[in-house]
């Protein structure tokens, strides 16, 4: 029997050893990582000497001046996977950062990004730098997960569009610099417009006229997603929104909102506007590209989509028409956040600075239809994309696409009610009552 217990003990001991070995694996990896990192800088220096660019030297000098030792710093950059081209671009930008500074940063696109980020934050082990969608910012700030931008780590922050900095500012604290941004534009078919002898609409009245004139048996004048992210711009143009600017009260119970929603409901009822689903397409871009709609309201990304999917489709972009209270637009933007409990905050901010500096922003957006978040980079971007100036112009008056933490449900309530409004199931007042009721529950 004794012998038997000995065997059990031996077995348990073996288990313990295996467990310890598994646990130790990480340490080993880190150690070897560190040791290889320690041998890295000379190699990189050599590489740099070989390439020897004046600019690189300057940058190196700058990093040294900032007093951040990046040599061998392991940095994880998390984002969501978008197009292969974008992934490649960011990966090569990060590789450039590594060769300039000797750091060991990697871009790791995550499938199911929200889930992955949330899990890593909850586990207390977040990546060093990560994408933060403007809509997600309040939740992250509310739970104290994000570090504010420290003074002096970013070059010339005033060069970043103030409307975009505002998006990532909560209660006066600025949390992260935007990676890039997109706005909405009125994308139209110039050929159809010329054939009908019409001008590009610049006001709501003109938009209604043009949409009606361009509607034929197998084409609607205008089609855009039946949701807040598009229809909300009409609320802005009427001087209102679902919530007040500080997000503490419901603002939609106003004459401006009634006017905007009634204007839209009438357009749908007249048949000159339809939601993409109603004309058998998935979204505004497809509705326009396939020719099922003569105009759509979409963001910059439609340009790349049309180029890939409908290369023969003629299109032009104008600013969104003005409403009774002037212009209004959405700024869709993402920033690079650094966790409040980051292991290497200085190195992380150095990476963010590299990616969002004037040069970094220009390098990132070159060849893409997302716009650089810095005013100084706008001219260079427009030189490459002259036909897209309407999107850049929208930045001046664009509003954030964001709800305070815990109030996000109200967007779903609006979308739901809006879809019933345009189907003619409810009236504008009923929509407003539903949204106000939901606001009372949530605020």
């Amino acid at each position, binding site marked *: 029997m004794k012998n038997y217990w000995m065997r059990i003990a031996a077995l348990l001991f073996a288990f313990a050893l295996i467990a310890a070995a598994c646990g130790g694996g990480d340490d080993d990896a880190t150690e070897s990582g560190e040791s290889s990192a320690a041998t890295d800088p000379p190699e990189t220096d050599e590489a740099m000497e070989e390439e020897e660019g004046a600019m690189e030297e300057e940058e190196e000098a700058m990093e040294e001046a900032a007093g951040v030792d990046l040599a061998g710093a392991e940095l994880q950059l998390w984002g969501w996977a978008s197009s292969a081209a974008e992934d490649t671009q960011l990966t090569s930008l990060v590789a450039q950062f590594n060769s300039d500074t000797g750091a060991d940063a990697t871009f790791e696109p995550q499938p199911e990004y929200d889930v992955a980020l949330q899990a890593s934050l909850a586990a207390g082990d977040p990546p060093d730098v990560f994408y933060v969608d403007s809509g997600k910012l309040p*939740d992250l700030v509310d739970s104290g997960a994000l570090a504010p931008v420290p003074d002096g780590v970013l070059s010339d922050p005033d060069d970043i569009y103030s409307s975009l900095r505002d998006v990532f500012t909560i209660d006066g604290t600025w949390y992260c610099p935007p990676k890039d941004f997109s706005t909405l534009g009125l994308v139209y078919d110039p050929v159809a417009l010329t054939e009908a002898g019409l001008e590009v609409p610049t006001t709501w009245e003109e938009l209604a006229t043009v949409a009606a004139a361009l509607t034929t048996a197998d084409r609607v004048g205008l089609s855009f997603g039946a949701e807040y992210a598009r229809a909300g711009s009409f609320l802005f143009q009427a001087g209102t929104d679902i919530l007040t600017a500080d997000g503490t009260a419901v603002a939609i119970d106003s004459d401006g909102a009634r006017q905007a929603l009634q204007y839209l409901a009438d357009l749908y009822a007249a048949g000159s506007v339809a939601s993409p*689903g109603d004309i058998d397409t998935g979204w505004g871009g497809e509705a326009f590209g396939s020719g099922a709609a003569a105009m759509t309201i979409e963001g910059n990304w439609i340009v790349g989509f049309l180029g890939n999917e409908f290369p023969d489709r003629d299109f032009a972009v104008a600013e969104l028409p003005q409403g009774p209270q002037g212009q209004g637009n959405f700024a869709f933007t993402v920033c690079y956040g650094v966790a409040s409990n980051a292991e290497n905050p200085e190195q992380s901010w150095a990476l963010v600075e590299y990616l969002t500096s004037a040069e970094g922003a220009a390098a990132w957006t070159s060849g893409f239809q997302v716009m650089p978040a810095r005013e100084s980079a706008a001219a260079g971007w427009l030189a490459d994309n002259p036909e897209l100036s309407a999107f850049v112009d929208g930045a001046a008056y664009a509003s954030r696409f964001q709800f305070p933490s*815990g109030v996000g449900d109200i967007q779903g309530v609006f979308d*739901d009610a809006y879809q019933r409004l345009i189907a003619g199931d409810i009236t504008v007042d009923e929509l407003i009552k539903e949204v106000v009721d939901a606001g009372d529950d*949530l605020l």
Partner: protein
Amino acid sequence: MTTATKPTAEAGGLRARLRKLQQSNQPQRAQIFNREGLWGWIFVSPALLGMIVFLAIPIGMSVLVSLRDWGGITPPFESEFVGADNYRELLFDDNIRRKDFAISLRNNLYYVLGVVPVQTFIALILAVVLNQKRLKGKSFFRTAYYFPSITSSIAVSLIFLFMFQTRGAVNALLPIQDINWLVNPNGIIHNLLGVVGVDEAPGWMENNEFMSLSLWEWASGPSVAMLSIMILVTWTTVGTFMLIFLAGLQNIPVSVEEAAELDGASWWQRFRFVTVPMMKPTIVFVISLGLIGTWQVFDQIFAISFGGPQKSTLTPAFLTYFQTFQNGEASLGAAIAVLLFFIIMAFTVLQRWLMRDKDRL
């Protein structure tokens, strides 16, 4: 319960002898703490460890999390303990969250009531057909019917997305031409009532509410969009259940079938009075699996409709995901998951009670 436990005088003697036999066997029976048992524990320990780490602990944690106010971002147990607040919000307070939960329950209830009987029936019929001795190309049909079950649910969903468009394959086959299935939020019971002229809710249905949803809304039936997803799911799961039925059918002795045939029973009579009664344990099993699976529907909703149009395909499982990962209300999501667990439990227990073996009690 075996017949040996029936308290007749004769069987009573048998039982006493059995007990004696059991007692004399006691030392050799699988005791879980003797030497043999210990080895047993060691052998099952990897699997047991996996169960504890990946099932028991997470389930326990999600119950604990549902009692807190956790946004899903900070470490969970640093958050504030709020007791049953999340449950109160979902069940008793008249607010938007309860309304969403009620909508998801309504949608999923119709979904379950539609999918479970249909998939069970079709699977049983297919299995009986495939089990016929004289059928040629059996393995071809078996593979063909099983194929949808092994295809990625996301891939199948995307194909259905195309099929159910206005100009898609489904409308081309049907006499109705202009239904856009997947964006149509109208309940089919409402639609049917509309056909017979009931367009408006009767007053008593409009004015009486249960969980923030009027009785008229409860009675909507599945939306057209949900119906499309129900068709899709039925199509993909029928194959799996058909296989289970086939296995069950092969356990029925051929002699029983032959005896019925000799007695002059028609095909239907044999099916109704021989096959179905003998298949009852399998049917119970398939319906249990069906109930559990359909209450948890998520993939297809995620891929096709994201809860829309107008929340008509919102389900508790999807709402859990939405509140946890999209809306920053992880505790609320956990509470929905816990409530869903009790709903599934209740339905399964009710089903097993309804289909209990009355003859053998």
